[in-house]
């Protein structure tokens, strides 16, 4: 009849141990607000940077921008594409 006592003592010990662990963890977490705030600010700044860079990337890769740059560099549209209907000869007499 000693076994039930052992179980009860074990359970009580477990409850006390878990309570202590919970108290310690909560205690540590409750004072981690400064760190959490810093992390959130840092995440926010990265998100902002990412959004700003994405905006720049999209602006730069837009056709509107590419067309403007191409025009400024002197490119014109090719109006006479060459179409090959038969295979090219190996040699052509000049």
């Amino acid at each position, binding site marked *: 009849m000693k076994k039930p006592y052992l179980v009860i003592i074990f359970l009580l010990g477990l409850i006390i141990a878990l309570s202590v662990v919970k108290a310690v963890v*909560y205690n540590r*977490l409750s004072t981690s*607000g400064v760190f*959490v705030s810093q992390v959130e600010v840092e995440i926010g700044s990265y998100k902002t940077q990412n959004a700003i860079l994405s*905006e720049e990337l999209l602006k730069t*890769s*837009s*056709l509107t921008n590419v067309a403007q740059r191409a025009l400024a560099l002197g490119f014109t549209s090719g109006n006479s594409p060459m179409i090959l209907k038969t295979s090219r000869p190996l040699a052509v007499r000049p």
Partner: protein
Amino acid sequence: MKWRYPFVFSLLVILFVLIIGRLFFWQIVKAEMLSELAKSQYNGSVKIQPKRGEIKTSDGFPIVTNKISYSLFIDPTLIKDKNATVNTLSSLLDIPTASISSQLLPDRLWVKIESGITALKKGEIEKLQLPGVGFEETYARFYPEASVAAHLVGFVGEDETGKKGVVGLEGFYERFLRGKEGYAVELHDALGRPILSKRQEINNGSDGGNLLSSIDRSVQFLAEQKLKDGIKRYGASGGAVGIMDPKTGDIIAMAAEPSFDPQKYWEYSDAEYKNPFITNTYEPGSTLKPIVMASALDAGLITPQTKCNICAGPVSVSGYELHTWNDKYYKDTNMIDVIRHSDNTGMVFVALKLGADRMIDYLAKFGIGKTTDIDLQGETDPPFKARNAWYDVDLATTGFGQGISVTPIELLTAFSALANEGKIMKPRVVTAFENPNGEVLKIPTKVVSTPISSKTAKIMTQILVNAVENGEAQWTKLKGYRIAGKTGTASIPVKGHYDPDSTITSFIGFAPAEDPKFIMLVILDKPATSIYAAETAAPVFFDIASDLLTYYGIPPSE
């Protein structure tokens, strides 16, 4: 001394009752209020704003997305030098000083001065370290291609109910794009810092979904450029271009001029937001002739070789004398040449053969007189006369596209039957939805109706190829390519008459004729250089078609 014991006892009882009563008051009567007060001290409710979904072109490029933007606030109680602050902000933000200083009343705490400030501008202002000036980060709509496809995508406006999509895709898919606002409750410590273990999400909102559209960014850009050039070249007051894949109903491009900048939508009038391709109605003129002709061919009432026995001169119907556009008449002309010459009397012959009942029935099958249900906000329900209002002259004029109104999208969709073996596909701009988790749901294509047989569509295609090869617009056709098409010069009804000096010119066609990759409708409003489509809309059509055929890598067939 006996009275003292009962007195003290009674006093204690009364005090006890008072304490119990007070406790009852605070614990029971005011319990909810105290609980809320406590929560407000350590709980912070955080609103989680959903990110609005993007609209992507067929190559996956976000033609509409979000960018970070800032709102500038001022706390008037914290400003040290009001004049200096106002002057600095006025010059940096380009706002009149009076409009800033008038808002800085001493009884106000947090005054919004300007929104839509860029990160760069925010950095400039922050460097000045102005006391009492702060920013709030928000998301604003961003259009990397500026005003490209503005009528198609629409814009996000703001009214008393908040931000919402207006016209185009933004308006049509508002609920899907908007997403759902969420709330989270955060526990704070004594200094107001968040406690990590106690963050609970109460209402789990979600970001808006993305729309994957059929718009080809390159074709859209090309169509807009060519349309602008065409309007300038022919002195038109405006115009529109619609390009569709007839086999799927996918809108490849849709452009209209004058257009607007969705980033600065407030600088434009309501009329400029509307997409004329889906909202404007006009008399299609000769571009309706192939549809009427195809109906009569399909009904077995005529063949391409049928001769017109009333085409030797003007035709009289119910007392009205109907002429050809150039007053040239071709005796015993066949149906192929009726389309080639765009012969009005020939089309009166076809319409009278068809009769009012069959005409109405076929037009309904082609979708004329009803909306196409394209997924764009603002499509007009086109007017269509009731059967009892159809007189002989209405039947005759409908044969050549007058006295009937259509929207450009309605005509493009109806015409697509000729390019797609007689089948009309439901026009659409969005081909798939992408939810915030990245899952893609494809939308299947849908056959709306089959107004004519495949055989009739093929015959009509050959007649239209002949019209391009030998008709009025042959001077501008593309060498080596078989393109089926038809010009249309529509008169503009003004106070019961037609305006003799201005027209709406159009050209509709598809290429390559035997296996169409696209069907396109070009419309020019009131061109000044010529009132005829063959000299205005047709060259714009072939200019775009030439680049499209090269873009799709389609070589000439002849």
